[in-house]
């Protein structure tokens, strides 16, 4: 059984860490500490070594310590049973990524070398937030795995921009060029079909895994269902044509992958409107763990799992369910403010660290 691990990480002027160098267990690592001491920054650094950007929707440069010129993350990793060294440097002039000390010219070729899955409290927005959250999730997670998806998505976005710019220019034109609109629409549909097909395949796969994870975590027989909601069902061209006039008036494309959404159900109830806090949180966690399974199936290696402050939100049953899932499958990083007695029982074999004001110390 292969899994990706970070065995050592070194941070330089990253968030509130001036300079940090620390070893990790290949299994579970628990980071203990009060809020705002720097626990999440460690997870953020691990996430960034994988995806070159923060899991927060902040600007990259925000991770640079004030007064510093750059922030550097360096990691010693096990990747498909090979020892590799990864490095990501964020500076005001841009980002650089290195693999075994060799700079990778295109960041898109670096992203995906090491897979990371993160679950943070704000991830409940995946279900409860606006559709943009869900589309960003799809694009980020599928993009990591599939070059074909990246190619089609990037071209979809480029053609969408061309189409919107054409629509805007048509507003000023007495004789709008409908033939050109028709051609651009055909081109958009070509990429749209690919993007939607890959998204649907991904959702189906994630649904299969998430269904099992949800039942394991909640110790119930409830069925979690994830459904892709396209803005166009079929007859793509006709639907687009019906909106030509509307699109010309608004100067924007009203249908397509940029308007699609995803809905989550437990049995037949939508979680967004009918789910309890517990069901909502468990569903998102089940989806995140489904990503772990998906990446494993796809790459034959388990990704690194980052769990930011999730334990305080789960009841003991679900906490146990989560530990059962993790066992020694993935390398896992968990931040928490405290471990109660119950949790101590599952976690006696793990590395524990205390994080205090930008310092970190291993305790067991």
């Amino acid at each position, binding site marked *: 059984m292969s899994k990706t691990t970070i065995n050592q990480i070194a941070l330089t002027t990253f968030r509130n860490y001036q300079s940090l160098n620390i070893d990790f267990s290949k299994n579970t690592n628990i980071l203990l500490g009060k809020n705002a001491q720097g626990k999440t920054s460690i997870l953020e650094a691990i996430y960034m070594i994988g995806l070159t950007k923060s899991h927060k929707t902040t600007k990259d440069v925000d991770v640079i310590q004030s007064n510093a010129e750059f922030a550097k993350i360096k990691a010693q990793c096990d990747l498909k049973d090979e020892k590799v060294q990864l490095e990501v440097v964020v500076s005001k002039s841009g980002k650089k990524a290195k693999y075994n000390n060799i700079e990778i010219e295109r960041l898109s070729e670096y992203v995906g070398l090491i897979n990371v899955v993160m679950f943070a409290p704000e991830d409940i927005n995946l279900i409860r937030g606006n559709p943009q959250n869900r589309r960003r999730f799809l694009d980020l997670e599928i993009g990591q795995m599939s*070059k*074909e998806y990246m*190619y089609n998505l990037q*071209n979809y976005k*480029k*053609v969408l*921009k*061309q*189409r919107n*710019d*054409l629509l805007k*220019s048509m507003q000023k034109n007495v004789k709008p*060029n409908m*033939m*050109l609109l*028709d*051609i*651009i629409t*055909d*081109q958009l549909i070509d990429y749209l079909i690919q993007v939607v097909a890959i998204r649907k395949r991904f959702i189906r796969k994630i649904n299969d895994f998430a269904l099992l994870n949800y039942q394991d975590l909640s110790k119930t027989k409830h069925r979690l269902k994830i459904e892709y909601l396209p803005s166009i069902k079929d007859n793509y061209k006709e639907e687009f044509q019906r909106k030509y006039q509307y699109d010309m008036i608004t100067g924007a494309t009203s249908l397509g992958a940029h308007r699609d959404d995803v809905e989550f159900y437990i049995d037949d109830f939508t979680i967004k409107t009918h789910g309890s806090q517990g069901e909502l949180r468990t569903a998102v966690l089940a989806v995140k763990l489904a990503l772990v399974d998906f990446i494993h199936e796809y790459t034959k290696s388990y990704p690194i799992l980052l769990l930011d402050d999730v334990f305080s939100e789960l009841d003991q049953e679900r906490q146990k369910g989560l530990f059962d899932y993790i066992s020694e499958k993935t390398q896992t990083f968990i931040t928490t403010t405290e471990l109660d007695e119950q949790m101590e029982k599952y976690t006696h074999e793990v590395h524990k660290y205390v994080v205090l004001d930008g310092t970190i110390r291993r305790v067991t």
Partner: protein
Amino acid sequence: MKYPKALEELIESLRMYPGVGKKTAERYALYTFNRLDEEQINQIIEAYQHIKSDIFACPICGNLTDTDPCYICKDESRDQHTIIVVEDVRDVIAMEKTNHYHGKYHVLNGAISPSDGIGPEDINIKGLLERLHDQQIKEVILATNLSNEGEMTSQYIRKLLSDTDLIISRIAHGLPAGSNIEYADEITISKALDGRKKYDS
């Protein structure tokens, strides 16, 4: 601290070129003074003087030329029935180098791109239609780039010509010559598969 006036003027002139920054312009200007003799400099001046006075777009095909019409349009030994449509004069040079094609050309001088404010009327499509109407052309090969804009432009021309008897074709996506499939990226391979050719029996 500034350079003497003449040097400063040359540096500023060189900086009109895209991609030439201050450092590069300085290096070229100093090189011009230190390393080039009078004869070489006169050669440059002469070339510059002729570029605007002697060179113009061929009124028939849009290719750059110093004769009217250009040597390709003038050449009666070339196939008068086939025309290749390209975006740029550089594409004509590239195709001519192959020595594989012996028909005519039409240079559009760009591709349709609404985001850049370029519509069908901003490139030389009108000239193409006039030629197809007047001349004895039977086949049109659309060789705009395989980008979204090039594709859009070819589709547009194809639709304009849909009511004619012309044979219209589009250049294919393919694998680089002499390449191994295993080293090609996924997109190139799928495009090459889509554009596969049936063996003539």
